[in-house]
């Protein structure tokens, strides 16, 4: 590189081309202020979580439509720029960089994996662009990854697992076996359960780790059967959860043991079918059926049904909606599209877009919110969307999060 720069002809070429590049860039900045608010939305449209990602896009587009229909802020409309990050951290970083440098987005909302959100955050943090992550992670709010521009709309494993444990352990028993996908997400979930369980005197009989993407769990199940735990916790996700739940059912484990999962997703339940998930209990950020109890959920569901042929939003989809709504509200409050000002407005925001009252904790920008405990239905389903019973809603409470000190933040 240095030898290239030392070459005088080459250097003049670079100077000339950067001057050319700077021209349109300056023009873009000028136009962006007058024109629409641009929000970049990198999500894995292809890959294992594509069904969830497409729902995130649908819900985010609804939020944008609502904003534009209401006339925006002083006439300033919003434009959503959806990009496919292919569930790959490198791809996510590249797309985010393009969104910021080429498309000149004002903010970034998105991601659907613990790993991609960290790589997106690394890019946005460095360029001081506000990022609101809509996917589960414990790490993103920890001091080492966090910045003034980092917000986390989704639940985190600690909070979700904790809520499920606090609900299930006192009801179903204290002797627990974990079947855990052997990667960061699985480990974080187990930690969350054990932390909640410690206060309740819960005993871990075994924590069996399986490789990510295992298709056949039968080899792990005789041991679990022999241990006869009160509760079996499936700390895995997506297809792994479907497969392990199905096979545990076949092995008759449900006869002696309650099966719970930290995260029971609407989309996984649809893919796995009623039989495999029968009686399994888990946590989720949102289930459309809470609309009888929560007025904002009813309003959101109705808007979604109207926009998308009567279908209901999924949990991750709803996060796409909330992620955009919060940022746009903060634009209004700050009367600016400057990331720093919008961040300060977001820190003050109290909101209820779809699931009851929420706010971002000051020290780490984690959205403090309720956790919904649901149980899978196999009987008396009204229609194809009717898959869960809402057992309980753990109200939003800062005390259920790890403390700011634990996250490495200095409290002021």
């Amino acid at each position, binding site marked *: 590189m240095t030898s290239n720069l030392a070459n005088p002809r080459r250097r003049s070429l670079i100077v000339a081309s950067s001057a050319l590049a700077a021209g349109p860039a300056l023009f873009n900045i000028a136009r962006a202020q007058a024109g629409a608010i641009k929000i970049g939305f990198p999500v894995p449209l292809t890959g294992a979580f*594509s*069904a969830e990602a497409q729902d995130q896009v649908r819900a985010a587009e609804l939020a944008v439509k609502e904003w534009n229909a209401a006339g925006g802020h002083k006439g300033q409309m919003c434009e959503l720029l959806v990009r496919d990050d292919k569930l790959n951290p490198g791809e996510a970083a590249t797309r985010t960089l393009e969104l910021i440098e080429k498309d000149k987005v004002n903010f970034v909302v998105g991601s659907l994996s613990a790993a991609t959100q960290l790589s997106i955050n690394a890019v946005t943090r460095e360029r001081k662009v506000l990022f609101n992550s809509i996917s589960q992670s414990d790490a993103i709010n920890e001091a080492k990854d966090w910045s003034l521009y980092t917000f986390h709309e989704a639940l985190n494993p600690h909070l979700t697992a904790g809520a499920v444990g606090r609900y299930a352990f006192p009801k179903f028993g204290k002797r627990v076996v974990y079947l855990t996908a*052997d990667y960061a997400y699985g480990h974080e979930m187990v930690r969350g359960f054990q932390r909640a369980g410690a206060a309740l005197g819960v005993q871990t009989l075994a924590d*069996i*780790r*399986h*490789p990510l*993407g*295992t*298709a*056949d769990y*039968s*080899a*792990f*199940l*005789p*041991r679990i*059967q*022999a*241990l006869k735990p009160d509760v079996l916790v499936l700390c895995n996700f997506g*297809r792994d959860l*479907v*497969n392990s739940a*199905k*096979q545990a059912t*076949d*092995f*008759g484990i449900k006869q002696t043991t309650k099966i719970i999962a930290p995260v029971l997703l609407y*989309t996984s339940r*649809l*893919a*796995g*079918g*009623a*039989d*495999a998930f029968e009686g399994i209990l888990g946590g989720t950020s949102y289930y459309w059926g809470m609309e009888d109890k929560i007025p904002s959920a009813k309003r959101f569901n109705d808007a979604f049904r109207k926009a998308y042929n009567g279908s209901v939003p999924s949990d991750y989809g709803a996060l796409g909606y909330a992620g955009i709504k919060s940022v746009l509200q903060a634009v209004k409050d700050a009367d600016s599209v400057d990331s720093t000002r919008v961040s300060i407005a977001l820190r003050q925001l109290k909101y209820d877009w779809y699931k009851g009252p929420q706010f971002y904790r000051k020290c780490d920008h984690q959205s403090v919110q309720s956790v919904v405990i649901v149980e899978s239905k196999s009987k008396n389903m009204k229609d194809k969307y009717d898959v869960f019973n809402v057992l309980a809603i753990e109200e939003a409470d800062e005390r259920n999060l790890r403390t700011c000190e634990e996250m490495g933040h200095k409290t002021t």
Partner: protein
Amino acid sequence: MEFTPSLLALQLVTGIALGAIYALLAIGLSLIFGMLTVVNFAHGAFFMVGAFVGVYFLGVTGNFWFSLVLTPLVVGAIGLVTERFLVRPLYGRGIDYPLLLTFGLGWVLIEAMRVLFGIEGVPSSTPAALRGSVDLGFGYFPKYRLFLIFATALVVLGLWLFLEKTRYGLIVRAGSRDGEICKVLGVDVARVWLMVFGIGTAIAGLSGVLAAPTRAVNPEMGIPVLAESFVVTVVGGMGSLPGAVVAGLLVGVVFAMTSLFAPAYAELSIFVLMAVVLLVRPQGFFGKAGLLG
């Protein structure tokens, strides 16, 4: 002590049930390789198509047994078309031509299922008659997995009778020994090969419909299965049917036992087994040396 004899016994049966599916897959792969010298990289995809077709027929007819019979016929028919129009023009061109072709075909089939059924996959449940578990004396074991062992034994027996006791089986065996001589003797070798490819893919489809109730049916489900069935085929000996059965069961048991004592190494264990076999006996348990040469 946590690892009681009854737990070990239950783990062993689990391993055999796992091995049954491995064996069934490897039989199809081995049959095609042994007779046609075609390394079929689309085998995992045929397995996956079998699972989808099976779930589809189950949905339409509501009868598991019906779909169990119909699915291999449909997948076998796809196999016949594949051999006739895609693989046949490549005979005599070296082993890597059909290998690359089937590799590509596998991806085409995956994409086709994504288009037809969506990327999420379809739910599949255990047929009502085989739900629940039975007490084996040392623990409860799912009825459906016992049925898997039984079904595999039946297929192996049927195939053996066909190859050893029927006239057609004799022609197939002769054709694989020396195609040229068979041709001279007036046997239509092309038809024999077509049939063998059809049977091999039909068995892959059958494994798919059999495995569907135990796992998630999605377009990518055949990818890990392909790797596992190659391990079994290599351990048993490329082209050997007894090898496929013995190695399939062995791989299942090794996997199950490693899962019990060191779950983190379960996946690795079958590849270690393959490496050891390759070092000690490169042609596998029952394989002929130099078949690929």
